[in-house]
């Protein structure tokens, strides 16, 4: 059993490590600050392999430095003809055997972890009432946004993944168009989002994202998918189970209509121009052509990567290609009878969209 001083030492060590690591990127996105079992396992493998590799580097460096210092021609003499050594079977054996041992040290956890991280057998487990024991999220990668469907809860959202902490969350991944790759660096490694087959894996989320500076973890598309690949970001909000259940319940409800006049005008425009692609109802909605906007007002970004304010939103609606080249959202002219949206219409739309919230 651990005694007081030892615990204290461990704590100090962990703190020192944390301070050191905080120099290694942001908590929201760095693989060096793991915030879940999967990322932690991978981080441990990183540390283990770094130690083994550091050993190799040290050995090579020692021989290397000694060799180039001791045997310079200026030191051994201009006319010295070195002995023409053929080789040494013993040395060959040594530098074949030692690396094999080092690789075996790495191989065991590699194989174990490969199977462990791919273990999705519990995915379809049901309790006595026939309800799923684990949360499953169906992720669809589209040019250039992410759709998150919760099949058991029958809700759909986009761009911001909301998950409970402290439990295993399973993911089904598929691409609607070209190949993407789903990556939340601080939570766990990536898995490709292929157009032809569903890929499955799990992640665990240890910490509530409200404790983070930005309030969300950053998710990325990691596979080149076109001009706006770099902008195909998503965010991850982690809530404790209670808050998560509340969020799901709120999502499942019929959303209230806006009360302000500006927002009501916005809703009218929205229902003429935008609703063909964007749903504003999370419950029972079908996968959309465009992102589901039920939680738009709760989100932290516009289009996955821009400041979440009305000004940015209006610019975005007025000219989506300027901000996210190659995305499939039509220009206003195409959906507004050939006219760009007027400033007034944009104000109304922004007011309406910013009012779409399920969280208080």
């Amino acid at each position, binding site marked *: 059993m651990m005694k007081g001083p030892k615990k204290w030492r461990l704590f100090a060590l962990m703190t020192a490590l944390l301070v050191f690591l905080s120099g290694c990127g942001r908590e929201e996105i760095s693989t060096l600050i793991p915030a879940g079992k999967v990322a932690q396992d991978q981080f441990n493998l990183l540390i283990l*392999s770094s130690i083994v590799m550091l050993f190799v580097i040290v050995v*090579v460096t020692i021989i290397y430095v000694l060799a180039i210092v001791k045997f310079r021609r200026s030191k051994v003499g201009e006319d010295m*003809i070195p002995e023409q*050594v053929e*080789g040494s079977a013993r040395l060959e054996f040594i530098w074949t055997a030692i690396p094999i041992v080092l690789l075996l040290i*790495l191989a065991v956890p*590699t194989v174990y972890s490969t199977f462990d991280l791919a273990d999705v057998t519990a995915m379809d487990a049901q309790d006595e009432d026939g309800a799923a024991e684990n949360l499953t999220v169906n992720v669809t990668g589209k040019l250039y946004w992410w759709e998150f469907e919760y099949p058991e809860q029958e809700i759909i959202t986009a761009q911001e993944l909301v998950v409970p902490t402290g439990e295993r969350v399973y993911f089904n991944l598929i691409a609607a168009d070209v190949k993407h790759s789903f990556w939340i660096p601080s939570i766990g490694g990536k898995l490709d989002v292929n157009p032809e087959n569903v890929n499955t894996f799990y992640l665990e989320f240890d910490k509530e994202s409200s404790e983070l500076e930005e309030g969300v973890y950053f998710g990325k598309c990691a596979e080149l998918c*076109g001009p706006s690949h*770099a*902008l195909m970001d998503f965010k991850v909000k982690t809530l404790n189970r209670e808050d998560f259940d509340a969020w799901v319940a709120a999502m499942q409800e019929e959303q209230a209509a806006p009360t302000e006049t500006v927002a009501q005008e916005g809703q009218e425009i929205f229902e003429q121009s935008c609703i063909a692609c964007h749903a504003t109802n999370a419950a029972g909605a079908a996968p959309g052509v465009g992102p589901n906007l039920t939680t738009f007002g709760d989100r932290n970004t516009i289009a996955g990567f821009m400041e979440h304010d009305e000004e940015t939103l209006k610019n975005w609606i007025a000219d989506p290609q300027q901000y996210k080249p190659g995305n499939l959202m039509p220009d206003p002219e195409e959906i507004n009878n050939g006219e760009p949206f007027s400033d007034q219409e944009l104000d109304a739309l922004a007011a309406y969209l910013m009012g779409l919230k399920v969280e208080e």
Partner: protein
Amino acid sequence: MSSNSQKKGFGATIWDYLTTVDHKKIAILYLISGGFFFLVGGVEAMLIRIQLMKAGNDFLSAGTYNEVLTMHGTTMIFLAAMPILLAFMNAVSPLQIGARDVAFPFLNSLGFWLFFFGGVFLNLSWFLGGAPDAGWTNYASLALASEGHGIDFYSLGLTISGFGTLIAGINFLVTIINMRAPGMTYMRMPLFTWTTFVASALILLAFPPLTVGIFFMVFDRLFGANFFDVTMGGNTIIWEHFFWIFGHPEVYILVLPAFGIFSEIFAIFSRKRLFGYTALVFATILIGFYGFMVWAHHMFTVGLGPTANAVFALATMIIAVPTGIKIFNWLLTIWGGSISFTVPMIYAVAFIPSFVAGGVTGVMQAIAPLDYQLHDSYFIVAHFHYVIVGGVVLAILAGTHLYWPKMFGTMLSEKLGKWTFWFFFIGFHLTFFIQHFLGLMGMPRRVYTFGADQGWDLFNAISSVGALFMAIGVIILLVNVVMTVAKNERVGNDPWGDGRTLEWAIPSPPPFYNFAQTPLVRGLDPYWIEKMEGNKEGMVYAEPLGDIHMPNGSFIPFVISLGMFIASFGAMYFMDDKAWALPVLIGGLAITFGSMLVRSLKDDLGFHVTKEELIADNERIQREARALEGGKKGGLK
């Protein structure tokens, strides 16, 4: 016919190079065109680093950035690194085995011109509606979705240049198997020839999968086939397999000849026979062999399942063993030697830590679960630049200095060479070391921009500064080349003073028939053996002086390649319903097959260099050598 001594006009020189089948001149063609594409790829690299210099930069647009990153990778791999290595293979390995030329001189020329026209075709995309933009890996779903003709330029251009590379590979295999001088057994072959041999075998086996994949891609895009179209039952993962079954051996096609160059350098400039020659040879073969068994480690995140991932993870780790054997044998070669820090040797010495760094990160990525984090992040970008730049490009720069005298008869400036080295070497580590951490900090690769809120600003700025250093190094190298050519100070047979293999026993540059008499090889490092035994001629001969049969030059390889170049335009614009496309396609193919027919029907028996001409030529060579000795008392020493 002793054409070496005659001064020719500019037009005649051009014609000579267009029609040459001489491996030494083809080497120069490869070096010049590969060098040109290296500069093009370098400019593209600089554009990338300028764009990523700061968060939210708008120097390049998103679409243009994807074109630049695609062309940077494609150009550097296919049009710069491979041709420059082929330049050294051509220039050196026939000499190292005591041959008068390669086995198929005509095919050698054809291989070059196919590569050249393929490369030109690919780069013309910049001016004809946009370059390919799906990455050098050209993953199928994105490639099929790509608009314009960029991807068609990629697939047709690489098809043509791929033919050229395949031909070159077959040629070297046959040459090394059949054309070794008496006494040059396999286990006496210099290591550069060994690595040329193994790399050629890899070319033979690795390029067909790429050709098949690209063939499918061409048919999908141009003729409406559905190999990769998911909605029609196609499968894009197949492309990834084809690509990496080629792509991983391709890494060894590049890095093995680089190992070969460094092996020569370590032995020469330590004045010591390679330590563990046998182990080095078998390690080379093993690396080539394993190279075909690990392609899926590029696909750990594709979702192949834990069994495949685990098997490929272990297979990948095994490659570290023969690579380690090589590193330690090199270290033991310089151990106990007499190290002279010439420019080639500085590169070789710098290569060891750089490549070890690239190697250990390779092992880290072999750990499949860890690779889920590293894959497609900047960690991978750092890793493969450590392998390709730290291994291959350093070897190319070292080889340029080492073999320049053998190829051109002059020496590059050592002083400027050291300046290049320091700028390039410091710049290289500055650029790429920090990218490991960018990857670990969550930065995906192939992003045209990044937000200021991601915490990647500083490291990207440092990386861009490093790229500037590398560019300065390359510019100094160019100045060096120009000054060396302008000065034109001739050097003797063995300008480094410590040459060990046959190429250093003959004049620089060698006469067009290489060896007036075929040498007799009495052991590993034949020239060193003769030197140590006091043989002033540097060689013993396997035959008396007699007439030599040599091939005639030919313009046909150029025309065959030109026909394919023309036909590609027809194929590409066929889908656009251009009326001229079909005639151009047929016309181009007619040129190609017509010239093949001419080649087949017309006997070209070559010519003989008579004994008298050889004696006269030899006297001239002796005279020039004496003048050189009198002039400045030998080369380096």
